[in-house]
C-alpha cells in the first residue's frame, strides 16, 4: 500500500505507524475476531463481503503493507481458484450463463465467496505481519496464555528460519555451480543434495544451541520469549482499537 501513498519503505526504515506500536496480543485477538466475522458471513451477501474486503484493505493501508508483498502472496489463492471453478462448473441448482458457459448459480456464488474470504485473510494477516515481528507475535501468544513450551518452540523456530534459509541458499548455489545440469533430473538431485546437507547442518545447530544453553549455566534452554519493556502491554484503548475492524465487519454483516 505504501507505494500508492508515494512512501518508499525499505528494510530498516519502516515508518512506525499506530499498528506497529499496538500491543501484539490485542492485534492477534482483533485479527482473529475480524476473520471469524468474515467466516460466518454467508455467500449470498456479496455486498457485505466486498465491504469487509475494503475494511481489510484499509487496515493494510494503515499498516503500510507493501502492495508487492500482498500481490506475491495472492499466488496462495491459486489452488482455491481451481476449487472455486470446480464449484461453479459441477455445482447443482439452477444454471446461469457467464460468457457463454453454463455454470451453477449457487456454485458460482459459493466459489466467489470462498475466493473472496481467502483473499481477505491474506490481506488481513499481511497487515499483522507487516507491523508485528515474530518475536512480538510470540509475546502476544504468551500473554494470551498459550503454553510456554509452545511459544518457545515457535519463537526459536522463527529465529532459526533465517539462519537455515541463508545456509540452504548457499548450499543450493554451491551444488548448482558444481554439478548443475539443465535437465529436470539434475534439478531434483541438486535440490535433494542441498536439502540433505542442510539437514545435517540443522542437527549440528541443535548441538550448538545446546552447548550455548549449557554455557549460560543451566541445562535448560531458558525461556525463549522475553517480553521486554519494548513490547507494550495492551491497555483498554488498545483493545478497543484492535476490536474496531471486527466490530465494523460485524456491523456491515448485521446492517445489510
Amino acid at each position: 500500500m505504501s507505494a500508492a501513498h508515494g512512501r518508499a519503505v525499505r528494510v530498516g526504515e519502516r515508518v512506525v505507524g499506530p499498528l506497529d506500536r499496538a500491543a501484539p496480543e490485542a492485534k492477534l485477538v482483533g485479527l482473529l475476531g475480524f476473520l471469524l466475522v468474515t467466516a460466518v458471513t454467508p455467500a449470498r451477501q456479496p455486498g457485505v463481503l466486498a465491504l469487509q474486503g475494503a475494511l481489510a484493505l484499509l487496515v493494510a493501508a494503515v499498516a503500510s503493507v507493501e502492495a508487492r508483498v500482498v500481490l506475491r502472496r495472492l499466488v496462495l489463492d491459486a489452488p482455491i481458484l481451481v476449487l472455486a471453478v470446480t464449484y461453479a462448473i459441477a455445482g447443482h441448482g439452477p444454471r446461469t450463463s457467464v460468457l457463454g458457459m453454463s455454470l451453477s448459480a449457487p456454485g458460482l456464488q459459493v466459489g466467489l465467496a470462498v475466493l473472496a474470504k481467502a483473499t481477505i485473510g491474506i490481506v488481513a494477516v499481511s497487515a499483522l505481519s507487516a507491523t508485528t515481528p515474530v518475536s512480538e507475535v510470540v509475546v502476544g501468544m504468551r500473554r494470551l496464555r498459550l503454553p510456554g513450551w509452545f511459544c518457545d518452540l515457535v519463537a526459536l523456530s522463527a529465529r532459526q528460519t533465517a539462519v537455515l534459509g541463508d545456509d540452504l541458499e548457499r548450499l543450493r548455489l554451491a551444488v548448482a555451480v558444481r554439478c548443475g545440469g539443465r535437465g529436470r533430473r539434475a534439478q531434483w538431485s541438486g535440490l535433494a543434495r542441498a536439502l540433505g546437507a542442510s539437514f545435517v547442518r540443522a542437527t549440528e545447530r541443535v548441538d550448538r544451541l545446546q552447548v550455548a544453553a549449557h554455557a549460560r549455566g543451566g541445562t535448560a534452554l531458558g525461556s525463549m520469549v522475553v517480553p521486554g519493556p519494548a513490547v507494550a502491554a495492551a491497555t483498554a484503548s488498545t483493545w478497543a482499537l484492535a476490536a474496531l475492524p471486527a466490530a465494523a465487519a460485524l456491523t456491515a454483516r448485521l446492517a445489510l
Partner: protein
Amino acid sequence: MHIPDGWVDLPTSAGAGAAAAAAVAVAGRRTAARLKERATTLPAVLAAYLLVAQLPALPLGVGTSAHLVGTGLATALVGPSIAIVCVTSVVVVQALVLADGGVTAIGLNLLANGVVPALVAAAVLGVGRRWAAAASRVHATAGVAAALATMAAAATTAAELAAGGTDVIPAGTVAAVVGGAHVVVAVGEGLLTAAVIGVVARLRPDLVPRRPGRRPDALTGPAAS
C-alpha cells in the same frame, strides 16, 4: 495446499482445532519425555528446516510446480511425535507470518498436514520395518511413506472440505479434484524424501535410523555435549 479462512464452517474448524490441540499436547508430552533438555531446540530447528525446505519449488511441467512438504521426511528421521510438534510450529508460523493458510483454519491444516500424515507415515514405516532392515532400503521405505502421507493429507483436506464446506457440490467431486491434484505431488514428495534421506545416510549414517520408525540415538538420544 492449505485451507484458507472462511471456507470450512466454524463448528468443523473448532472441532478440528480441539482434536489437533489434543494430539499436539500428547505429542508434546512424548517429545519432552524423549528429548529431555533438547525438547525445544531439536523440534524448533527441525521446524525451521521444514519451513526453509518448502521454499524451493521444482517445475513439474504444465505450469505447476511442487515443493517438499516434509511431514513424511520428519517422521522418518525423528518419529511421529516430534514430527507433529515440528509441523505445529510450521503451520502457526505460516498462518500468522506468511499468510499461508487461514488463522481460523490452523486446527484444520494441522490435522491435515501434520497429525494425520505423520501417523500414516509412521504406520507405513512400521509395516516396512522388516523389509527395510537392509540399510539400502531405508530411503525407499521412507519415500513410500512420504508419498502415502501426502495422499493421506489430501484425503484429510478433502474430508474437512466435505464436512464443513458447502453442499452445492457432491463431496466426491471435491475429493476427486483434491486427490487428483495431489497424486503427482505425492510422487514428487516420495522421490525427494527418498533422495534426501539417501544424502543424509551418506553424510551421517548415524542420523538415519537403520530400521525406519526407530529413532537414531545420535539425534534423539542424550545430548552430545
